[in-house]
């Protein structure tokens, strides 16, 4: 802990001294300084202008939404008095409006009062068409936001919204102060550097020094609504380096108290943890590492019709091949190699929240090379002299692409070997993440174009409602040159049955029925083997043993309850 002490800012140290003299055990700022490390540095404190997790997490210490998700995925009121529902009258019977009531007496960190017009302003700020707001997806179908009085806000949707908790719930859409951002709407949004770097908020901390992509210094908010919180007087939010270095600084050298997103080899993490300075935490949201199977033909010879529905894939359109590929994979071993505590084998693309988790596909947990071989034999795919199966001149030779990432490359190597055992030849390709996940129209290497036979990546959804996520695999979401390759239906899966379920879910409010529908959609995708789920991934972070109150949250910001953190 020596170094931690040294690292403290002068302000933190003096505050520590003064509160220590006061001797109070309940006073704000009693525990001095806390150091957080995010190996991806935060670049801005305004989540509306950068949707990166590192940025929204950093901002969540300062600006707050009306409600958050807790570590179990339940909604908790933050700035709101309570969560509006149909039962308590907050959501209208026709599901087109939701009315939020603010807590009484809320203050911004500059001492002024939080009013409903701040909420209205924030909505307008994001929905301004010139502002380039990155969270506009949360405001889909919103037609009007109005203040009924100083503490009441009514949001109206153009269509019935069975799950009306998009706007102002979760870390992506916190409330901004109207007075600070009034001149920063539309095209002016990016020019308000001071406001974007140091927003005035209602959260437990305020920014004192913001160095973009480097370090943020924060101190306790004097006007925070709970006089006994936060326990820490100041925070350093350091960015940079890599995941292993971040883990090392918490688990091995003790310089830092909390490290975010430690996606490194499990055996290294276990070894670091054995030093006894900190603990590795994990928490599971809906993130699933999966293989997307291309149902269309990616041959370069097709020109503009490459990977479009115009041509079916020469062999992956055979369900037996897809099923055999899935059968050959040893998912528990993938978890052991790549994620350890931070992963679970899964047979669903929608494994969480628990009510949506289907049990119909659990057989995939066990690898069965023999069954896969038998399946391919039965389907007429015979092994050639080189050990690779072929039928009618079509060889089972797969180009397998993913983004560059140590764990993904390990997975590629393992899966290549297993597929080799069932007579499938695999060529591996990895692409820089910014290119793979970027949408550059001129690049052939984006995950949406999928100029390969299969690709692997992870995806999830924000919040707890899977409606939009499951809608990804409707026919209308197939990426193609016509829609500029926008669309998330990578397998190019299209079935009337599935589209019918998507439409039905959009009109269903009852949670149990919605769960049934989502599970039915999941099962269609799984039983057609157009998506091969591999690992249900958790967030993995490390906290120093001296830190108390950390509740790792996969549904919201990891720093969602930093007001409750304290020193043991």
């Amino acid at each position, binding site marked *: 802990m*020596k*170094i931690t002490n*040294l*690292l403290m800012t002068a302000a933190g140290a003096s505050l520590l001294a003064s509160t220590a003299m006061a001797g109070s055990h309940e006073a704000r700022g009693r525990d001095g300084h806390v150091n957080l*490390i995010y190996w991806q*540095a935060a*670049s*801005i404190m*305004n989540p509306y*202008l*950068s*949707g*990166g*997790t590192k940025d929204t997490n950093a901002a969540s210490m300062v600006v707050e939404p009306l409600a958050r998700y807790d570590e179990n995925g339940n909604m908790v009121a933050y700035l709101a008095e309570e969560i509006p529902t149909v039962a308590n009258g907050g959501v209208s019977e026709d599901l087109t409006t939701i009315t939020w009531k603010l807590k009484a007496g809320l203050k911004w960190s500059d001492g002024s009062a939080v009013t409903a017009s701040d909420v209205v302003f924030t909505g307008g700020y994001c929905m301004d068409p*010139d502002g*380039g707001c*990155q*969270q*506009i*997806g949360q405001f889909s179908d919103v037609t009007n936001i109005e203040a009924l009085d100083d503490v009441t806000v009514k949001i109206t949707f153009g269509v019935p919204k069975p799950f009306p908790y998009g706007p102002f719930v979760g870390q992506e859409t916190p409330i901004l102060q109207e007075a600070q951002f009034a001149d920063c709407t539309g095209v002016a*949004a990016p*020019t308000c*550097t001071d406001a*974007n*770097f140091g927003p005035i908020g209602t959260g437990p901390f305020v920014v004192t020094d913001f*160095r*973009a*992509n*480097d*370090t943020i*210094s924060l101190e306790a908010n004097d006007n925070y609504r709970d006089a006994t919180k936060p326990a820490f007087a100041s925070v*350093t939010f*350091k960015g*940079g*380096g890599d995941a292993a*270095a971040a883990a*090392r*600084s918490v688990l*091995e*050298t003790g*310089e*830092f108290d909390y490290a975010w997103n430690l996606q490194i080899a499990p055996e290294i993490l276990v070894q670091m943890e054995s030093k006894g300075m900190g603990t590795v935490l994990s928490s599971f949201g809906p993130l699933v590492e999966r293989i997307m199977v291309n149902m269309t033909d990616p041959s370069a010879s097709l020109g503009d019709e490459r990977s479009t529905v115009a041509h079916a894939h020469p062999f992956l359109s055979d369900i037996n091949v897809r099923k055999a590929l899935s059968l050959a994979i040893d998912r528990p071993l993938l978890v052991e190699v790549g994620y350890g505590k931070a992963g679970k084998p899964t047979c669903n693309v929608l494994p969480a929240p628990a009510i949506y988790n289907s049990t119909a596909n659990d057989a995939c947990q066990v690898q069965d090379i023999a069954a896969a071989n038998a399946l391919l034999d039965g389907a007429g795919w015979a092994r050639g002299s080189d050990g690779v199966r072929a039928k009618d001149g079509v060889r089972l030779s797969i180009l397998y692409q993913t983004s560059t990432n140590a764990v993904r490359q390990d997975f590629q190597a393992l899966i290549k070997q297993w597929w080799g055992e069932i007579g499938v030849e695999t060529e591996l390709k990895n692409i820089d*993440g*910014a*290119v793979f*996940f*970027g*949408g550059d129209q*001129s*690049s052939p*290497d*984006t995950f*949406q174009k999928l100029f390969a036979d299969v690709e692997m990546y992870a*995806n*999830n*959804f*924000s919040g707890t409602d899977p409606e939009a996520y499951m809608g990804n695999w409707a026919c209308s979401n197939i990426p193609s040159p016509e829609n*500029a390759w*926008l*669309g998330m239906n990578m397998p190019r899966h299209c079935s009337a049955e599935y589209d019918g379920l998507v439409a039905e879910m959009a009109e269903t409010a009852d949670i149990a029925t919605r769960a049934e529908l989502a599970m039915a959609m999941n099962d269609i995708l799984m039983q057609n083997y157009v998506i091969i789920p591999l690992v249900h991934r958790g967030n993995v972070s490390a906290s120093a043993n001296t830190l108390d109150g950390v509740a790792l949250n996969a549904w919201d910001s990891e720093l969602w309850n930093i007001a409750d953190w304290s020193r043991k």
Partner: protein
Amino acid sequence: MFNYTIRRLIFTIPTLLFISFVIFFILDTAPNDPTGNLPLTIPPEVREKIRISLGLDKPMFFRYLLWCQQFFVNEPLNMIEQWFNITIGDGDRLRVQSWATRSPVVDLVVERMPQTLWVVGMSYVVGIIIAIPIGVISAYKQYSWFDQIGTFISMLGFSVPTFFTGLLMIVIFSVNLHWFPSIYDTTHKVTDWGSFVFQVKQMIMPVMVLAFFNAAQLSRFMRASMLDNLQQDYVRTARAKGLKERVVVLTHVLRNSLIPVVTVIALGVPQVFGGAIITEQIFKVNGLGQLLIIGIQGADIPLVQTLTFIFAVLIVLFNLIADILYGLLDPRIRYD
């Protein structure tokens, strides 16, 4: 020489403009995308809107001219305003804005200058200070033990990449011995003896790793060049004249051997400003190198364009300085 310098300086302007255009063209053609690192929960249509709000729907040439205007007109005007505390025009002009941080790029560069100059610059100076004596002695006592060990160590220094030496030092000195911090604190201010000691402690590892690497390269060139010159006739003449060995080696031979070394140093100085990407990353120094790499990963074109252009200016400038130094070191070299 003076005429030559002026001519070169004038010719620099079209060169740099051309370089800036080529850089812009490359950045624009590169397939990475500013929305590539956003979470996948942000839908594709929103990504398209973000791209449009960044101006990516406009033609490339238009965006290049916009950058030129912002960088060559607005930024200097803004600087003048700040220095002299005056307002020119309406004072409300668009500066070069980074896409990721939405803040003026020049401010970011200024913010990061101290740590880069301290760590990378210091390592360069240390590297030169180590390399020149090693090079001179190894050449003078060719194939002695000193030379053999020096060769071995410098080759090791060059063939083992900094990502490895850096990590090794962290494991030894931070994890096991707890002597030095593994993470550089950029907000640290030196105010008294204690904070100075801390600053030295946090600088020591990155500086040494980089210095080792730089010295390895430099000492090889120094040694080779010294060896060439030690066998020249003028050395024999100087010795025959009865000059002291020290004078012969340090004044005559060293001076004549410096030409390749000066070239290497001049090539290296812009790299100091460019930061040392890997070393900065390993020790979390977050200087200009880290800024550049984050910009590239996030396809932050204005940021990368501005940074790369600043480096280009430095490269052109220091190569000019090297050319002038050649003339001073060896009067026989004439450019006119």
